């Protein structure tokens, strides 16, 4: 099996007003290439913290994090940024598009932080990504001119543009109505079918169950890890 992510004995503690809070405790987790993992659990169980660690948006307090065979537990800020840029695609609940940039520029943004792509390659990648989410015709629009569903599709295109090893989605349907939510979930499933590795945090049971594997957290610990691919089939 080709593992993309390996978490070994990961702890994460927060210090607030001199009170130490253990957000994640002894997390052992492996995510393999091509998996669609959903992480679920009640509010405050640590699922978003876990996703932040997976996305190198935050550092672990203890343990080892291996990404694509490389230990990324003790990297500098800038080294983590470079890995995020190449290996990880983010999809946020609130889309997090930049309001001053148009659709094309938003999708282009992560590619502008790389030095290994020519202008033509960037253009091809952006157009391909937008075509994948069916937003190519809106590339001159600004986020404020789009619906929530459309904004999330642009955000997915942005996540895909860098051809990451894994897509990390944090409540991707949380800000959407049911119709748009379904559309986004369909898109993620299509991407998964095309070979993408996806890790999604959600508290929506329906969404969680539609993944190929479901991990449940409670009080910062993994309490359930279920392979759903057979059920889904």
């Amino acid at each position, binding site marked *: 099996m080709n593992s993309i992510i390996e978490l070994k004995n990961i702890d994460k503690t927060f210090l607030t007003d001199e009170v130490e809070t253990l957000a994640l405790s002894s997390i052992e987790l492996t995510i393999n290439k091509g998996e669609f993992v959903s992480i679920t659990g009640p509010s405050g169980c640590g699922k978003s913290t876990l996703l932040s660690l997976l996305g190198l948006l935050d550092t672990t307090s203890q343990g080892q994090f291996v990404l694509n065979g490389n230990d990324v537990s003790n990297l500098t800020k800038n080294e983590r940024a470079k890995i995020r840029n190449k290996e990880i695609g983010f999809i946020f609940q609130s889309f997090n598009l930049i309001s*001053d940039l148009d659709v094309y520029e938003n999708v282009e943004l*992560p590619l502008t*932080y790389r030095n290994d792509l020519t202008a033509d390659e960037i253009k091809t990648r952006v157009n391909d990504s937008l075509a994948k989410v069916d937003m190519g015709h809106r590339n001159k629009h600004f986020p404020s001119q789009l619906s929530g569903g459309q904004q999330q599709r642009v955000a997915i295109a942005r996540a895909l543009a860098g051809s990451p090893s894994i897509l990390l989605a944090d409540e991707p349907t949380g800000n959407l109505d049911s119709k748009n939510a379904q559309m986004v979930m369909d898109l993620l499933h299509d991407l998964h079918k095309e070979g993408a590795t996806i890790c999604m945090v959600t508290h929506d049971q329906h969404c969680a169950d539609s993944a190929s594997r479901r991990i449940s957290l409670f009080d910062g610990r993994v309490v359930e890890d279920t392979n759903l691919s057979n059920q889904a089939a």
Partner: protein
Amino acid sequence: MFRDIKYAWRLLLKTPSFTGITIVVLAIGLGLSIYMFSIINMLAYKQLDIPHYERLVMIDAVVDGMENQGNVYAHDYDYMKQRQQSFEEFSAYIRTSLSLSNGKEAQRYDGAYIEPTAFSLFGGKTHLGRTFIDSDVKKAFIDTERSPVHSEVVIISYQVWQEYYNKSPEVIGKTVQVNGKVHTVIGVMNEGFAYPRKESVWIPIKVAANQNSGQGGWHVSIAALLKPGISLAMAQQELMTYSKELTEKYPESNTNVTVHSRTLVQMVMDNSMMIVYLLTGATIFIMALVITNVGNLMLARAMERSKEVAIRSALGAPRSRIIRQMLFETLIICFIGGFFGIILAGWGLDISRPLFETFGGGGSWWTFTLDAEELGIAGFIIFFTALLTGLFPAIKASNTDINSTLRDGTRGAQSKSSAKLSKVLVSAEIFLSCALLILAGVMIFGVNDAINADYGFKPKGMLTARFGLNTDDYKMTVERNLYQQRLIQALIREPGIENATTASAFPGRSSGRESIKIEDMANQDKQYPRSYFMTISKNYFEFLGVPVLEGRAFNDSDTIDSLPVVIVSTSFAKKFWPNTSSIGKRIKTEPNNPDSEWRTIVGVSKHLIHSQPFGDEQFRSAIYVPNSQLAYQYQYVAIKTALNPYQLQKTLVDTAAKVDSSIPLYHVFSLSDRLERRVGAMVFVGKIFIVFGALALILAAAGIYGIMSRSVTQRTQEFGVRRALGAIDRDIYQLLLKQGLTMLVSGISVGAALGYFAVNMLSGVLLTLSGYYLMVTTTVLLTISLTFIAATLIPAFRVLKLEPNSALRYE
């Protein structure tokens, strides 16, 4: 309303650091503005306690385009007086210095020969006795007379009454020698009266009708009262017609001679009006910076309260009530800041009072304190600031979308209008501070140059004093020269005094400019060339340590009976004999006077600056005539010492009294002080501009930092997103600097252009400035750019210290 005030007060106490910073910024800004506007008001616009103040006009000559106070020929005055239609009164006066003597002790004061009608124009009231009446003048004087006085009465100031008569109530009717002639004291003026400028003793005169058209006679100043309904411009136009007629009739003496009419304050302020305009402009800029800064702080605070405002609106508060409530906060802050500002301004006026005395030669009736009028101005400035800094943020905050604010009132992203406003504010701060700093920098260098100007000699250790020889004992040049030589010899004998000399003027002190006729040289212009003219003792150049470069200095062979001689400056020689030696050539002053003698040039001295050390005046030439051949009634004496010159002040005065007790020395100053007083107004302006410059930099740095910090903080989430997508710190810094470049470039372009305009406008008028523009502008642009970069990067550094995860969740 009380509830709103109470709530506003509570909110201010809740955020002491915000309240404290805002009050400090306001106190400094308002203090400086109140201080400056008070000075400007007092110098330029204040109503003086003179009847028909608004119609009182002072008229002086303009020679070669230069305003020349007290330089209207008595003949020209008479010519205009006979014809003029614009004025109710048209009277003359002559500023001079007058010596009071009781036979034992003499004291010299600034004084004026003044026509009774002119004296009455200033509306002075007597403390004792009476003012002048026409019959006080027995006979009108004519232009060619040696002394214009035909009167036996004198009026003294309150100060003279106090100092010389020890406030004796029996002073009226007492006799006193004024310049050696017996006069009767008929009046003591009220305290503070010192018109036309800073006089203490007044003698009535009358200028006769049908004056001679001759040259070299008396010059007068004119005080006139406009007829109701006639404007200053109309009157000036009428006088210009007469100037033109006089030029046509007497081209040799009157070419390029016109008159200039202005109000009393304008006259006294002279070139200083330009300083007033300059200071007004700079103060407005400082105020704009303060208002931008405080307005920005208030805006940030108002925006932070948008949720509270939305809740109030949802609960039914009318918009006007919300605006009013927010305005109270600004009003409270502004009034506290203003209160401290007024204290600061009062303190500032107190400590800088000595500097004002040098303004425009000194208007002694100015009182630089905060009176009701200035407090009124202060109140207006404070209220205006409160309105400007409070109203806009209150209106903007009260205009929020209640629905979206209540639903998602804590989004951290910077809205488009907020971003645009930040950009405008930052550009404005850069533009204002840039222009002000350029002007301040250039002024500071210019003033420094003026203070340290090389007049052509080293004034260190020189003490000077003025004396006037009474006309009875010292009528002729021989007697006057003899006194001077005796004085010099007596002084040189005193221990500590290395050398002594006398002259009608020393460098840096304006002396009269005379028309010069050059033998065998056709006049290229319609008028005669003019040059500074001084009578000097033979050791004048040796005393100053200035070489006679060609020919010889004056010596004992130059007597009243020998060949009339003259020494000219190199600037004079080079101008008229650029290719040959000037030695042996002949020139004469008073070209139209048939009695005027040809003088042979025997020496060429190094060029000395006899006027202001900047502009065209510094290059003006000079000619020197020996005291032994022509000596004036009023002269300066100077001594040189290795000690602090003031240590020998008593020796100087006492020695002079020993030579002749009836000739008191007065206006005793070191030559360095005289030169510094010459640029006294400039020194004041220089000091003010140091404060302006420093304040502009602090305000701009604080303001730009405040705005950029808020702007960057509001973009924390955006930076979180960018970093989540792979941006490293450098990418964020570069993005901010790139985006800031527009603000920086637009701000400094406008600021530098405005600075250039201001510097060009002032250069030459006040100081030689343009040479410093490039250097100062480069430094200012560099400083502002570095300030801007720091103000951008420091808050970014703070935001980037957050993990991207925290930045994404930042609220």
